[in-house]
């Protein structure tokens, strides 16, 4: 087949995976309504009990759909496309691309069926020994497998490209796409061992017991770096696409590569900062992870500087003057840009609150309070989700050849979401600082505090605004998809111009195997003492308390 035909076929499969991610976004977002109403003192769970058994069943669907299924399927689609575009050739295997889609779909169907049947109300962290139906764990496993298939396809494509282009630097867009998945390959080992080695056999009754602390440690081995798996695809948009979309330029190829290498090396050995309050984990190891978490904050600060510098170059090119005069000159009227600019502002707040979570002793004030969901709705809930919506506003026309429907609606959507999350997160953070636990069925709780009332009001109103914004997003999306196709593809693939190109970048940054090895070594140092000292004692039977 000619390259163009192969590429067209591959774009079709990429599109299907993208649609799957939006479908899951819709399902997961919808349950946000019930949670927001609960914060406003309106309990819809009790009247809806024939369909949804509990608040926690709804919360499980919300978390699994959005944090796992939505992000994984979007990444599979988006970073397959950026690899294809970055290397300027079709992916090595259309079959792998198809397999990734079907595997993800099977995973979504299995997990959704179990969650909807109230067979898996264990939340997205699925801490054992609460036990779900084994098909739920199988569904989650398939979702992870779909990401590995995407990664394998990227690596095969990179190998083919290297054969065709001996001695050349890996194009930057492909480099960052491949490194993101390499980081995730390493990161996902924890959850893979947890589920395949311990949880699945236990839920199938093949072994009688499981070790809750060991499983938790394996979960957070993956559970922190997963946030970089959510984030790095968005960084790719912010670094390599947004500058183009605001008519600015990216400063340095080398700096972007260095940032992604830092994430590859530092993302994984930080998971214990989710376990500061766990018994059975040595404080020295917790402290080591605290320091490494501070270190992984560094590449994000580089990103903040570089991305803002690119924005400034765009604003100035568009006639902005003075210290801050470039800001209003940015193309705020384009929904694909405004959504991501607002997402960046939310991310600044999210990053700051994340540093509080990571701060070892200060974590005692906020651990497992509503401060934490306040934090991560600013990061994954907005920096990532709102950016994905912004990306969709150019990506869907680009992939379908259909013009975006309702640009004004799309613009309103991005602002509504932003205002919504500011209220939502402020409420959650304030409630958390007043000691309100996270994951709490507020209207039915046996305890309350007057200090939680106004925060919960803010959270509820903000949450409803976010859901309303989500409805607008789907109006725009469906309106676009129902339009007539105008061309094979519409609009350009936005790729930033780089001032200092790869010729000035140290070649050592492209030695991906060596960096992966270094990352694995650091992970070993950071985790081996904890895992070895804990040991595995399979004592806990399963409990289904839902």
């Amino acid at each position, binding site marked *: 087949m000619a390259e163009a035909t192969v590429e067209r076929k591959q774009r079709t499969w990429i599109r299907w995976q993208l649609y799957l991610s939006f479908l899951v976004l819709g399902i997961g977002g919808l349950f946000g309504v019930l949670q927001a109403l609960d914060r406003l003192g309106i309990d819809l769970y009790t009247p809806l009990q024939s369909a949804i058994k*509990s*608040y*926690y069943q709804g919360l499980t669907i919300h978390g699994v759909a959005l944090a796992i299924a939505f992000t994984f399927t979007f990444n599979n689609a988006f970073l397959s496309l950026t690899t294809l575009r970055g290397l300027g050739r079709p992916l090595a295997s259309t079959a792998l691309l198809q397999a990734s889609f079907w595997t993800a779909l099977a995973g979504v169907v299995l997990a959704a069926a179990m969650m909807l049947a109230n067979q898996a*109300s264990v939340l997205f962290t699925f*801490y054992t*020994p*609460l036990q779900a139906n084994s098909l739920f764990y199988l569904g989650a496993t398939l979702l992870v497998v779909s990401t590995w298939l995407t990664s394998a396809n990227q690596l095969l494509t990179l190998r083919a490209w290297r054969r065709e282009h001996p001695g050349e630097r890996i194009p930057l867009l492909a480099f960052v796409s491949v490194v993101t998945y390499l980081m995730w390959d390493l990161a996902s080992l924890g959850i893979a061992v947890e589920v395949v080695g311990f949880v699945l056999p236990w839920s199938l009754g093949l072994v009688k017991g499981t*070790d*809750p*602390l060991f499983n*938790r440690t394996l979960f957070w081995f993956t559970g922190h770096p997963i946030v970089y798996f959510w984030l790095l695809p968005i960084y790719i948009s912010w670094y390599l696409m947004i500058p183009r979309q605001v008519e600015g330029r990216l*400063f*340095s190829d*080398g*700096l972007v590569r260095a940032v992604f290498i830092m994430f590859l090396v530092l993302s994984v050995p930080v998971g214990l900062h989710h*376990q500061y*309050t*766990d*018994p*059975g*984990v*040595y*404080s020295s190891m917790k*402290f080591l992870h*605290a320091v490494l978490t*501070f270190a992984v*904050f*560094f590449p994000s*600060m*580089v990103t903040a*500087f*570089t991305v803002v510098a690119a924005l400034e170059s765009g604003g100035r090119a568009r006639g902005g003057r003075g210290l801050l005069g470039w800001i209003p000159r940015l193309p705020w009227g384009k929904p694909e840009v405004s959504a991501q600019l607002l997402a960046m502002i939310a991310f600044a707040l999210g990053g700051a609150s994340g*540093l509080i979570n990571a*701060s*070892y*002793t*200060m*974590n*005692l004030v906020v651990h*497992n*309070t509503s401060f934490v969901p306040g934090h991560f709705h600013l990061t994954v809930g907005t920096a990532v989700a709102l950016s994905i919506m912004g990306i969709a506003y150019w990506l869907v026309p680009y992939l379908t050849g259909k013009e975006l429907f309702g640009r004004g609606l799309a613009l309103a959507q991005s602002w509504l979401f932003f205002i919504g999350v500011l209220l939502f997160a402020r409420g959650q953070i304030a409630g958390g600082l007043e*000691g309100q*636990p*996270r*994951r*709490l*069925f*507020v209207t*039915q709780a*046996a*305890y309350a505090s007057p200090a939680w009332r106004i925060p919960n009001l803010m959270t509820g109103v903000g949450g409803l605004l976010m859901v309303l914004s989500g409805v607008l997003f789907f109006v725009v999306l469906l309106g676009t998809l129902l339009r007539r196709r105008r061309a094979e593809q519409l609009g350009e693939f936005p790729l930033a111009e780089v001032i*200092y190109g790869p010729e000035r970048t140290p070649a050592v940054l492209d030695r991906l195997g060596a960096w992966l090895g270094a990352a694995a070594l650091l992970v070993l140092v950071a985790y081996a003492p904890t895992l070895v*000292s804990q040991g595995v*004692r399979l*004592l*806990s*039977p399963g*409990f289904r*308390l*839902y």
Partner: protein
Amino acid sequence: MMARLERIFLTLTGIALFVGVLAIVASVAVGGVHLPGPTGRVDPNAVRQTPPFSAPGVFPEAPGRYRAVLLARAWAFQPAEVRVPAGSIVTFVITSQDVIHGFMVEGTDVNAMVIPGQVTTVTAHFPRPGTYRFLCHEYCGVGHHAMFGQVVVEG
């Protein structure tokens, strides 16, 4: 490959993060804030026969010092009430007989996980009389939001 402003920005970032780490060290070394750590294990299936959890309760240890042995289970703490005089220092020793629970005491910096198989040990000082609730802050099933208890500090 770096501009001057960028170098300044990143240097300041590095300094800020370093100061943050120093502040954490100070909170432990000077402030005396400690995190829960390994303080023992127990077979979760035999917890009701294993001391001290075979007889949960509040025990005086020394003048002004108490030891509160708590057993967490879906969806209650046993005992659900801990009574001590004002000014007491209370060491909580907790485990779970079923799933993972949480333990957070209002008005203190006590915040810990309660994990089956592990013993959680945390200490709080109660200088003033009053009622301080302790909440389970980890999802532990449909009755999670009913799981709490209280420390009653008597004047």
